[in-house]
């Protein structure tokens, strides 16, 4: 149980080939079987939403689909729970602003 062991080493993971997804247009690497939130964490990204009122950054909090803090826009569809949705090759995750439906706003 060496201190520098990674989670993947700990469980002896031999994952299928990694693939690319994008976060706000830039590529990040995801492993098959990871949720979008896990892939974002692995890339050092902790926030992918701004709140409706204060515009504050948020990311995964409860990690099990209960808190809805991890909502993201995935392939153009807002309000997906990133901690539950599995990452798929080519997924485009974008920072969700507010309720994610600005396109419906009356200007």
């Amino acid at each position, binding site marked *: *149980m060496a201190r520098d*062991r990674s989670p993947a080493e700990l469980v*002896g993971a031999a994952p299928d080939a990694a693939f690319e997804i994008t976060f706000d247009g830039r590529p990040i690497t995801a492993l098959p*079987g*990871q949720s979008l939130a896990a892939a974002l964490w692995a890339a050092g990204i*902790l*926030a992918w939403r701004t709140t409706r009122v204060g515009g504050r950054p948020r990311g995964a909090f409860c990690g099990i*689909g209960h808190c809805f803090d991890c909502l993201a826009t995935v392939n153009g569809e807002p309000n997906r729970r990133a901690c539950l949705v599995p990452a798929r090759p080519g997924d485009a995750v974008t920072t969700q602003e507010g309720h994610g439906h600005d396109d419906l706003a009356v200007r």
Partner: protein
Amino acid sequence: MTISPSDDPEYDLAVIGAGAAGLAGAVTAAELGLSVALLDTSSQLGGQFYRHPAPALGATRPEALHHDWSTFTDLRRRLTDSGVTHLAGHHVWTVVRAEPKDLWDVHAVTGADGNGERPARVRARAVLLATGAYERQLPFPGWTLPGVVGAGGAQAMLKSGLVVPGIGVSSVRAQPRAGIGVSSVRAQPRAGIGVSPARAQPRAGGRVVVAGSGPLLLAVAASLVTAGARVPAVVEAAGYLGYARHLRVLAANPHKMAEAAVHGTALLRHGVRLRTRSAVTQVHGADRVEAVTVSRLDRDWRPVRGSGRRIACDALAVGFGLVPQLELATGLGCATRRTRDGSHALDLDAQQQTSVPGIWAAGETGGIGGVQLACVEGELAGLAIAARLGGRPALTESGRARALGRRRDRMRAFASVMAAAHAPGAGWTRWLDDTTDVCRCEEVSAGHIREAVADYGARDARTVKLLTRAGMGWCQGRMCGTAVACLAAEGPGAEPSPSPERRPLAVPVRLEVLGALAEVTASGAGDPEESADPEKGAGR
């Protein structure tokens, strides 16, 4: 969108939740000859405790992140052998009495996050609620900063995604776009690490303070250090003396002591310090966690002035124990009881049946007690349901049933001691400042809630919700419920709520799903009027 009769098979038993309790209940009932459907939100069996990596991650030693893994693999094998129908990716949003009246309709939305293809309905003669628990949170200044995550959440992300919060370093910033506050969302490299590409320095950071209350903290910290994170401190709000007053109960539950010893040993080996009677009272950082302030608490959990010490870290994993997940049960009208930590749990008879005949429950729904208790109660419920539906009352009088009942009672006694030992002290609200957001979804501050209590006379969480919107958002009060109830209870003459709030939709449901239900109703099954909640926006 329609729900056709072919989607609607009839089972003897529908089990909701594929964690330890649900698995034990499903296999026991199926092995005694019942037809069983097992519904769970996840694509995988195991619930939260036995959460594990998806097959594509190729984990050859999943047991390395688990205590008692063989109990799970044994249940999984028996599940396959006994022909239980596992309905993965099913998010049950309500259970209602069907027509004819001796059947139940279990309604679910499907897909990874319930946003999927189509709704589903499962009809059964009996229902076993094994919906588990979620983490109790108490807010504190800074708790909404990215990098503050649930302790159970950190554990879940580690067990399934093999990731630790704040351990990677991202070199690229999101492009600021027009609009509100986006610049604050960029993934910012921490000071001192530089901006080398993520893959060149993938393991930088990773200092995770673990804080809150309850035995889960030790398990989470042990997992984190074993998986390569550094844990500068484990911060426990209670003392551990609360257990010492109940030596007889402790002696009767040696497995709990053994488990604590395993975690304690891991923490000792990694030099992790446990600070008791302390809490994180402030998180520091602009866009993400950079440090926390840990303060000492008095016996009522009031922070001791001037005792704060700053600890640098990249993330904070926090949780104050677990709360039973009861929405489906309270929607059915099942009676609850107050537990010694002030939350609500289902009131169950000796056979694990709720106050509503035909609805059983096992595991955390009956009060937080851990995985071994969940297995025992699931098995007991499976026996009792098979006895009832099969007309075999002798099953519940067998030596096996009596032994299980004794084990359950022994472990329930421990659960009660544990709940009392970690019950939040009333003084915790003193660490809030008025600008702290209590409700994360609706961004309602402590100041607004205190105003509703002091100036407008709110005396319970429901009135606070109606005045401020606290608890009215996406999570339906799961994250802020305890805190709002505590703040409301500080008003003069306030009394603790005798029952949990009824939330008829257990998960978000699209309007088109409710529309499809109306079509089913037209053909004579179910009554959607009973389950429509005017307060919860059903669309997205």
